[in-house]
């Protein structure tokens, strides 16, 4: 209160002549313009843990690292008459080949064997093979700097878009059923059985349904194509993931007949079909690194649990000068399968700030994307498909991989060259390098707005086969659809995690609703999953806790990179990974 210091307080009759005493009052305004500082705001202890967490949550920079354990079975022997190739095979029929070469020195000779492991290894080390990687007449002069990029290239990518129109193909060789459909149509099915109680559907891939869900079918009964799932599974263990049934309430006609095929979509609630119907698509990844950004090195002395398989190629010492049974006239050891592990890191940082994933949410997953390059010319151009295309059709590879099927041609670009060796008369193909900003297809997935959940239905696979102009595999598959090797190009790396629950929020009463929230008319509010902060892992194991230092996150994972070989009699090496959720759960 401001007080005029010249004022005096006196009795009323003292004010002037004739004045009287009266009760008086003075209004005191309780007005405060300053506030006492609370002590803790002036004296603040610096809490290292808080500062660390503050910096950690604020940082959007990542340095992803993975350790690759390559699991590879060198499955296909073959024959080649191309000089630089047959000089360095892992021979499988050396004695007979040598006899032929001695007895018929002027006849063209084919040598039998396997390409050595270095043709598939992550890092080549055969930089001094005379006539192949060195010497005046070579197949391709080896550049040491490219040792880790001749066979494979490694990138970082993230899913940034969806392709609903991707044409997919699947066949069930037992039922002689094939499906051609576009990804956005959902999941294929056929009617397995019709009885008095149920109509039983079987899907060749996991349907992702639960009891009391609905399915939107491409077949219609009296104008209705929505049906409630009444039960899951058939007689086989685990068949609930592939078989579902709807009640047969007495449907007439041939709509629901055994063998009828179509596609389906999952619907959660018929009261709002548009919100609760799943969407199906193929993810599109964007590459955010360049080949030279990747640093691939031996992972110390670490090797996979499988032994190196090698053999000493025999030497014939009867001649002068020393003459080898194997074409190069010096003894050597050839390697069929190796076991070296590798560590992949990048010499650039990845800032995910402002990156939005394929569901328009902040990026929570990065991918180690590995692409077969095949620079040394042993293989044809890559083919692409999904895991459901990997099954054999009888003894032969799935029709999808046939050279006449353009739909399986890779969307990646290729180049070719003619070998430096003049006997190399045919082009050698290799996959061009991807650069930052390029796109590459990913997995076949399902997304449901209401659940705010993405499910991988089938993983993307790449397949490569041998270039038969140079190396003819001895396996019995047809010439235009040979056995080959396939692999999963994308290995996900979770950098943040969404909550397992779905938040529901009324915009009037809840603040900080994230921008990626989905507004549902059905629940009259926003629906979204929380993104857990870095370093927090809930009781169910959701969340991530990677090292944070240098102002940067260091997400890490062990990657088992399997190169599958296909065909009858081919034994793929099996690996056991820890299940996230096992059958008991």
């Amino acid at each position, binding site marked *: 209160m401001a007080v005029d210091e010249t004022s005096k307080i006196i009795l009323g009759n003292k004010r002037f002549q004739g004045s009287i005493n009266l009760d008086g009052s003075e209004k005191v305004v309780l007005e405060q313009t300053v506030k006492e500082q609370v002590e803790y705001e002036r004296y603040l202890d*610096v809490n290292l843990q808080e500062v660390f967490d503050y910096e950690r949550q604020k940082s959007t920079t990542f340095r992803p690292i993975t350790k690759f354990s390559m699991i590879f079975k060198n499955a296909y022997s073959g024959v080649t008459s191309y000089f630089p190739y047959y000089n360095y095979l892992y021979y499988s029929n050396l004695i007979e080949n040598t006899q032929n070469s001695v007895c018929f020195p002027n006849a063209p000779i084919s040598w039998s064997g396997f390409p050595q492991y270095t043709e598939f290894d992550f890092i080549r*080390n055969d930089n001094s093979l005379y006539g192949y990687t060195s010497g005046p007449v070579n197949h391709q002069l080896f550049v*040491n700097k490219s040792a880790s990029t001749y066979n494979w290239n490694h990138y970082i990518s993230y899913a940034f878009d969806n392709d609903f129109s991707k044409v997919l193909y699947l066949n069930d060789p037992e039922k002689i059923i094939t499906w051609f459909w576009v990804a956005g149509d959902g999941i294929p099915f056929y009617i397995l059985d019709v009885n008095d109680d149920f109509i039983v559907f079987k899907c060749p891939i996991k349907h992702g349904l639960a009891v009391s869900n609905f399915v939107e079918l491409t077949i219609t009964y009296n104008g209705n194509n929505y049906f409630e799932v009444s039960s899951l599974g058939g007689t086989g263990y685990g068949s609930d993931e592939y078989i579902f049934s709807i009640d047969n309430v007495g449907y007439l006609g041939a709509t629901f007949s055994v063998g009828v095929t179509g596609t389906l979509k999952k619907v959660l609630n018929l009261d709002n079909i548009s919100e609760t119907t799943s969407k199906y698509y193929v993810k599109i990844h964007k590459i955010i690194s360049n080949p030279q950004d990747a640093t691939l090195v031996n992972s110390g002395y670490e090797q996979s649990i499988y032994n190196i398989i090698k053999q000493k190629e025999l030497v014939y010492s009867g001649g002068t000068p020393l003459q080898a049974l194997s074409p190069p006239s010096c003894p050597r050891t050839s390697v069929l399968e190796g076991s070296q592990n590798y560590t992949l890191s990048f010499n650039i940082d990845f800032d995910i700030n402002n990156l939005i994933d394929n569901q328009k949410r902040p990026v929570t997953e990065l991918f180690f994307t590995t692409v077969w390059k095949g620079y040394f010319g042993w293989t044809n151009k890559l083919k692409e498909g999904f895991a459901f295309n990997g099954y054999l059709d009888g003894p032969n590879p799935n029709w999808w991989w046939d050279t006449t099927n353009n739909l399986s041609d890779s969307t990646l670009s290729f180049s070719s060259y003619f070998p430096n060796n003049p006997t190399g008369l045919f082009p050698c193909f290799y996959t061009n390098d991807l650069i930052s900003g390029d796109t590459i297809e990913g997995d076949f997935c399902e997304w449901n707005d209401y659940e705010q959940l993405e499910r991988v239905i089938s993983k993307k696979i790449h397949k490569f086969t041998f270039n038969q102009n140079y190396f003819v595999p001895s396996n019995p598959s047809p010439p235009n659809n040979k056995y080959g090797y396939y692999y999963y190009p994308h290995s996900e790396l979770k950098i943040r995690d969404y909550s397992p629950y779905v938040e529901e929020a009324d915009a009037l009463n809840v603040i900080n609703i994230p921008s990626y929230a989905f507004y549902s008319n059905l629940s009259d509010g926003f629906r979204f999953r929380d993104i857990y902060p870095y370093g927090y892992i809930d009781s169910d194991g959701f969340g991530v806790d990677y090292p944070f230092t240098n102002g940067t996150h260091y997400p890490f994972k062990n990657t088992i990179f399997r190169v599958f070989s296909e065909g009858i009699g081919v034994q793929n090496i099996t690996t056991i990974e820890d299940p996230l959720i096992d059958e008991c759960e």
Partner: protein
Amino acid sequence: MSVNKYKLLVPTDDRQVDIPIEIKWDFTDRDQAIDVYQAGVVQDIIGAPSDFELVRFSHNSYLSANTNSQVTKIFYEFYFFDTGQTLSNSASWINSYLTEGFSSLDVYSYSKPFTKSFFKLDFYDKKEDSDQTIYFTVILPVQQGYFDIVTISNYLQNVQIRKPKMGLDFVGDKEGFFIYWLRDTGYIDLDEFYMSAKFFDARLGIFVRMMNTTQSNFPGNYYNFDSDNYFYYKMKLDYTNKTYEVFSTLTNNRVGDEINPIRWYEYVNP
């Protein structure tokens, strides 16, 4: 129709009605502003996190005179002084471990005194030894390098033994090929280093200092020379391409290729 004595006149000027609206307000989010300020103060006090991460630098490619192609191999040659010779003769420095005192059998059989020996490359910020700081060291083990053919017994065939000449690359001998240094220049902003070399002789337990030319080049007084120029090579980092190149401190020409390898000669003390 009802009538009264009131009449409504059209005003000749603008009228307004004051509606008192009481607003009791305060700055919103004042507390959050304090939090932001507080975080800023804390950062001023303890500093922002520095980036101490290393990145791998490899030898930059050059046009090979042998293959006429771009190659990355870096060549080192180490010459030891033959104590039976004179300093005036440049041929007194020989590219062999035998000159240093190892026997052929030591080198051939990888005896412990031999395998425990190594070359030590030290990298400084300056070449003036009175005012320099060592930042990192690279070790070149004697188990890598090219070969000489020698006789170890009259009853055996000649054998190959290592010689102190190394060609380091992405493939093959690569220990010491890569330089690991800070990827971010925010903490230490250096892109030039001066490389000196020593040989640790585990047989004698001593370090042998090396220089970039023979002392025979200093006739008159073999010990009187400018140490700033003769004990170092310059190594330059390229942070963009993550490569390095090595230059002579005498000519400033690039060295390290097969024609002009990085040559180190034993320095003979007076």
